């Protein structure tokens, strides 16, 4: 297991390096006139001059020096300061990241608790009406934009029943119930949107596993269908699904950006959008970097789980 862990960590290095180059490169692409625009728009000319902004963006040195300086800062948790609020980007991220994480986690729970049962049902009742209904549902969920559902949820309940989802954020540790009441609606929408892929994958995997010899053996032993499906098939069928859940992390974060905006959840997505509209580039690059690194770490975690679930992976 240790060799597996070391191998995985080493494989992470080039990817991280390229990822940092992408973030850095994106910030280098900011055209010069944007700084002028930024000065005019943000009215920062009183507090900063052009040189100060260039310094804040790290644009006042040769490229390779900039990169090393920026990478060094990023590694020590120094992501610069917001041009708008003049607070450290790192502390803004620390405040918003847990909120997005909570939304993502809730959505993942919703997604799993919808996708697994339906996917399993769909597989063991292959080609029945229920299977077709489940598959059609998942195909439709892939096509429905979550921002549309979000908008509808904001509008129709209030028109019909004078109920609208709460939009005031309360930290979880202040009042868990109020917090959940706010977060649950976007989490359900996001979770349902993501469940389609998991459902399809679960179905395919279960179909494959159900054709294996050891399933026939289990049946031949006279085990009940329930035990065959839930104990023998599910455990093996689920292994690839775990990987898939890791692959969905980018979808969760991307979806969170839009839903945070609709439901006024003060997470990282909302921070990013506000920063984009204010052209607050240090904040933008901070969010950009953190999402990338975060997803890499999630995938590392998933890989480790995978190695733990399936001994064959470890010894490859």
């Amino acid at each position, binding site marked *: 297991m240790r060799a597996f862990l070391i191998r995985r960590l080493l494989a992470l290095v080039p990817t991280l390096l390229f990822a940092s180059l992408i973030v850095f490169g994106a910030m280098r692409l*900011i055209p010069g006139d944007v700084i002028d625009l930024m000065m005019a728009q943000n009215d920062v000319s009183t507090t900063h001059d052009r040189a100060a902004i260039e310094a804040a963006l790290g644009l006042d040195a040769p490229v390779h020096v900039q990169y090393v300086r920026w990478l060094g800062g990023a590694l020590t948790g120094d992501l610069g300061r917001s041009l708008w609020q003049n607070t450290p980007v790192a502390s803004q991220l620390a405040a918003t990241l847990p909120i997005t994480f909570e939304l993502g986690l809730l959505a993942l729970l919703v997604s799993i608790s919808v996708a697994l049962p339906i996917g399993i049902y769909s597989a063991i009742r292959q080609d029945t009406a229920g299977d077709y209904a489940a598959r059609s549902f998942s195909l439709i969920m892939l096509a429905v934009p979550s921002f549309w559902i979000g908008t509808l949820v904001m509008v129709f309940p209030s028109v019909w029943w004078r109920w609208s989802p709460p939009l005031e954020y309360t930290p979880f540790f202040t009042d868990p119930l109020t917090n959940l009441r706010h977060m649950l609606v976007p989490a359900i929408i996001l979770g349902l949107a993501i469940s389609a892929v998991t459902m399809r994958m679960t179905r395919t995997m279960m179909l494959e596993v159900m054709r294996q010899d050891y399933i026939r053996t289990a049946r031949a032993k006279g085990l009940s269908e329930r035990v065959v499906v839930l104990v023998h098939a599910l455990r093996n069928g689920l292994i690839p699904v775990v990987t898939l859940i890791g692959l969905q992390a980018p979808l969760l974060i991307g979806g969170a950006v*839009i839903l945070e905006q609709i439901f006024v959840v003060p997470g990282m997505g909302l921070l990013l959008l506000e920063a984009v509209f204010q052209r607050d580039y240090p904040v933008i690059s901070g969010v950009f970097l953190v999402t990338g690194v975060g997803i890499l770490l999630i995938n590392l975690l998933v890989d480790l789980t995978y190695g733990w679930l399936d001994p064959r992976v470890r010894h490859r």
Partner: protein
Amino acid sequence: MTDAAIPAAGAAGLPRSVHDNRFLAFNRRLIREKPLGAVGGAVFLLFLLAGALADVIAPFGLNETDMLRRLEAPNLAHWFGTDHLGRDVFSRILMGAQLSMIVGLAAAGLATVVSIVLGVLSGYLGGRIDMLIQRFVDAWMTFPDLVLLIVVVSIVGPGVPQIVLILGLLYGIAGSRIVRGAVISVRENMYTHAAQSMGATTWHILRRHILPNIMPVVIVLFTTRIGAVILAEAGLSFLGLGVPPPAPTWGGMLSDSGRSYLYLAPWLALAPGLCLTAVVYAINVYGDALRDLLDPRMRGSR
């Protein structure tokens, strides 16, 4: 492609009518074996036509306002009602279809070209170039699509050409993985080795052996990307970062006229969302059917 496998060898020299027959035969097979996919293709074609003919069909002008008829519910003159400026929603939906189709086809096309170039380079040449390209693709794919899009838009600014370029690059780089896989499996085929040992140039092998044989994968990739691109553009426009108003994008219609006036005119939220869902669903179903019919490796995996 059982029926296509035989004439494939001499396909280049066949008269045009035979190509047409193969196309017709393929469509007949699509309708027979994958009726849902055929319906999806037809619905997508309908939207494509609506977009192409939008200027002719639209009963009202794109930005023709009528302050006396604001926020009207759907009626005979205004099939989908009117928005907060008295603009005809049906006409704007048609124009929105045009925009979605332009962005969808252009960006998916660009994405496919990028995928082919990167995938072929990486898959055929292999070695150190492959390693380098793949680590870059890894890194690229760790960023959430939407976050990457938002960051890039914040740099290049909103607008149709920018959106097409960004979406094309974004999905092109991600899709190169799939092309690479296909290229690697074709590269190991006997006929490729035979051509190599006969001294064929790399360019010749790519053009005559690799490209024709990855076409099924490429066609499926292109089709499935259209839906993803249309959704992404709508999401960006919804956030106000896509095609700037007053251009009638479906995403933009949902957010600007949409959200502030929704309580007074809830139908404003229905048409753009329904159209988006219908188009994306149609093209996804069609793409799935194409994959089952064209890509033998995926057959049966459903």
